[in-house]
Structure formats: C-alpha cells, structure tokens
C-alpha cells in the first residue's frame, strides 16, 4: 500500500483546493454570464416595446421636388482665391415649395441658402436666418430663398418642412430633387452654402459654411447692388 509523505499530502490538498476554486470560479462566471444574457434579453424587449412604429413616415420620394434647371453648371467653390463663378449667369431653378407653390431661383435679386435638415450647421444657423427674416430680412426687391437639398429620410430632423416650421421659418423654399441637382448645378459641396444673385441673374457671391448673422444685411445689400 502506497503511503504519501506530509509534503505530498499538502501538495494534493493544495491542488484539490485550487481545482475547487477554479470550478467555483467557472460556476460563478456561468452565473454572471447567464445574468448578463437575461439583462440583454430584457433590454432588447424594452427596445422593441419602446420604439415607435415608423412605417407611416414620409419618404424622400414623397418630399423631393423636381425643379427644372436651365443654364450652365457653376464651377466648384475654390478653397481659396477668387471664385470663378462670380459674374456668371446663375442657373435658373424653376421648382416648387413643399406645398407645390411655384418658386424660381436665379432670375432676380435673391439671397439663397442651400440647407439640409440633418446638417447640424444648418440647424444652428436656421434660427439666425429666422431672426433676420423677422427683423426685416433683405432689402426691398431682394428675396430670401432656402433650397432644401441633400435630403435624407433616414437622418434626423426629417422631414425638412417640419424642421423649418419648428424653427419658425415662413419664407420661400425651393425643394431640390432626390439627386440634389440644384445643389450640384450651383457647384456646391457642403451645407449650408450661400449664393447671392443680383437682379440681372448673375452670381455675385458664394460661400460654404455658416455665415456670421451680422453679415446677413451685407448679403442683402450685395444682391440689391451687386
């Protein structure tokens, strides 16, 4: 009959304890994993229950317009230096607002802002535009027109007409088509973009990005005198 030395017995006890500790740890981890899975399941159920039905929302094709475009496409706004589009004839956009009322861009003195409802910069600037409009807006003979472009029904602030209404904008809006053709024709790459057109239908100013509200009046004057 084999006998164990005290050291071997101690070693065996240690090994047995370690095996028990590992088994206990494994059991604990399984329990924690199970708890985690239950929590995950509850979260998914809560998510399904709390997400509203969205099938009735407007789609891009319901909102997009179909403006007729006449004229040459403007070159892109350069990173720096002189804008080659200044003095060029603005493309004429013959379209409509969200309610189907006819709106034309490019034939008379206008300050035009190309905006996308999902664009945070546009979202930040729209209240400034509304404040300018409420304070009198551009001078007489100059129109302020927003072009709703780069529309995307999967992004936030959809649909754009609600976004504009929520901000209190009540002025003219031309709705771009699904391919943002008006935006492309004006040589723009980003929103918001500003285009100022004089009463001869010439481009007198273009800019990409937010504009200091203190300069809105200058845009109006430029359209009137440019």
């Amino acid at each position: 009959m084999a006998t164990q030395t005290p050291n071997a017995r101690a070693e065996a006890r240690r090994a047995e304890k370690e095996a028990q500790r590992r088994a206990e740890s494994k059991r604990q981890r399984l329990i924690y994993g199970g708890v985690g899975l239950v929590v995950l399941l509850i979260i998914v159920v809560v998510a399904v229950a709390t997400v509203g039905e969205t099938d009735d929302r407007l789609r891009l094709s319901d909102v997009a317009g179909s403006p007729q475009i006449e004229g040459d496409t403007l070159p892109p706004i350069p990173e720096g230096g002189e804008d080659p589009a200044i003095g060029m004839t603005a493309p004429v956009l013959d379209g409509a607002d969200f309610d189907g009322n006819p709106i034309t861009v490019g034939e008379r003195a206008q300050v035009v802002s190309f905006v996308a409802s999902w664009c945070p910069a546009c979202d930040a600037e729209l209240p400034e535009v509304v404040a300018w409009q409420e304070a009198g807006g551009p001078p007489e003979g100059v129109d302020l027109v927003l072009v709703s472009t780069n529309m995307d029904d999967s992004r936030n602030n959809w649909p754009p007409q609600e976004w504009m209404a929520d901000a209190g904008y009540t002025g003219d809006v031309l709705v771009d088509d699904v391919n943002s053709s008006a935006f492309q024709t004006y040589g723009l790459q980003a929103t918001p973009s500003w285009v100022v057109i004089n009463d001869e239908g010439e481009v007198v100013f273009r800019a990409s990005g937010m504009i200091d509200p203190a300069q809105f009046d200058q845009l109006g004057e430029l359209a009137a005198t440019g």
Partner: protein
Amino acid sequence: MIAVAERTFGLLALVAMGVALFTAGVLLRGRVPGWLRDDVALPLATAIAATATGGSLLLSEVAGYLPCALCWYQRIAMYPLVLVVGIAAVRGDREVWRTAVPLSVVGGAISIWHILIEQNPGWGGPCDDAAPCTILWVEEFGFLTLPTMALIAFTAIGLLTFAARTR
C-alpha cells in the same frame, strides 16, 4: 430594425454608464469586491468592447451611417480592445490594464472632442454630405449620441480593467 438596434445600444450604454459609475465608486473607496475583480471585470469589459465594435459595424455596414474621421479614430482605439481584453479575460491576465487603459484614455479623449464638435456645429465647418463629424446619426434619450456611447464604453472598459489589476 435599425431603430430597435439604436434603442438597444442606447439602453446598453445606460447600463455601461451604471457599470462605470459603480466601478469608479469602488475604486475610489479602495474596496473592489472579489467577484468584480476576479470573475466579472475582464469578461464584462470584453463584452462592452465587443458590443461597441459590433454596434459600430452594424450601423455603418447595415444601416449605412458613414463613419467620419473622428469615428475612425475611435474605432482604431476600440476594435483592438476586443482581442486585447478578451484574451486577457481568458488567460486571467490582470495586467491588461497597462494596455487597455491607455487605449481607453486615447479613445475617450477623441470621443470628448467629437462630442464637443457635435454640440458646436460651427467648429466642424460646413456639412460635407460624405461624412460630417457634426451629424447626429443617433440620439437616444436626448443625449446618447454615438461618440457619447463610445465615451461611456471607453470609460467602463478602462475602469473595469483597472479594477481587475493585481493587488
């Protein structure tokens, strides 16, 4: 389906925030419970990293949300954490915090910058339709945007791996 996924990620982020707050609390008190240190911290950190990674891939590859430059930088910090912390969890490597915490701090710092740009759209310049970092692809419960969720994940992972360190 995407809306449910976004809500699920939002709820999971809230849970992760609770985990981070709890872990920060026990670390500050200097009393990390044995169950957290020995059995939960590393697997949970792995699960958070894996969820963040899977979520970002789902939202970009399935939902079609284009990741911006800052999103990519956060991905660079988050994706390796799945393997780094995951392997450490399997091997019981308590020193993984030496790798995971720096990655989490870098990723979290980028998340904070991304959140600031989201909150101040003027900082990010105009909205390039391709992938502006100012766009709010997801906004759950009024404050949980994608970089906010990423910041919560980085914080939780960093704290959990630190809590699992050798005493």
